[in-house]
């Protein structure tokens, strides 16, 4: 049996179709990162800790599960940096009042919102497709997952 691998631009074939429970676990890694993101708001690190815990728990899992846990982990890692900076910038404006809301701040927050929105949509899309057993590969993060996760 063959499983389709869908990248952001094209569809490739993946070697074997994952079983029902494998697909469920891989999909759970994305769903869990979303739930942790919402539960941990406005703190930007809760989702990363949760995804890391999920990754460690599935370290002995099958290749399909491990690969998707790695992809979810690295997508959340990039969110940490961009969100942390925005979070502490906001805190410094409201607490210390040394900074003021200027154009730089507004433009940065707009970028943060846009980045989070793209990430949010991509995560939902991945969770849905992975649950069906389709191997979703993100741009850039997919390559990192390939390098780290070996069959």
């Amino acid at each position: 049996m063959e499983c389709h691998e869908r990248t952001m631009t094209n569809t490739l074939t993946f070697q074997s179709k994952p079983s029902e429970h494998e697909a469920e676990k891989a999909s759970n890694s994305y769903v869990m990162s979303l739930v942790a993101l919402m539960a941990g708001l406005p703190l930007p690190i809760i989702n990363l800790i949760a995804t890391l815990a999920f990754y460690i728990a599935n370290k002995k899992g099958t290749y399909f599960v491990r690969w998707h846990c790695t992809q979810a982990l690295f997508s959340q890692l990039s969110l940490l940096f961009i969100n942390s900076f925005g979070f502490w910038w906001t805190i410094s404006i409201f607490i210390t009042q040394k900074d003021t809301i200027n154009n730089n701040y507004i433009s940065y927050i707009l970028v943060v919102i846009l980045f989070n929105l793209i990430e949010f949509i991509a995560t939902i899309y991945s969770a849905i497709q992975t649950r069906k057993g389709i191997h979703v590969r993100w741009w850039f993060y997919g390559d990192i997952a390939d390098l780290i996760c070996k069959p």
Partner: protein
Amino acid sequence: MEIVNSSRVDNYLMVNGKFFESHQIPAIRNQLLKLDDSKWSTLQILQFKDPTLMLIISLVGGSLGIDRFMIGDTGLGIAKLITCGGLGIWTIVDLFLIMGATRERNAEKLFQVL
């Protein structure tokens, strides 16, 4: 004899298949087919934990680590209890992990007998 054994294994997996990971089923089936008759009685009395029940327990008592205690991870259960469910993070993670963990513990239990 071969056919009788095969149908017995199929019946066993039909009843107990939900307690194991689906990718482990072929390996379990192979092991059961080779199983000695004397071990079947031990196998029949083996009790497995229901993954769905564990999910409900995790929802209700996850922050106290009750789910981990029940599947036999006493050390993790104590750690979860002391940290109040890992400050809530571990509780969320375990909601998604507990069903798989239960199935794996069930398989480990089965393989001990086989």
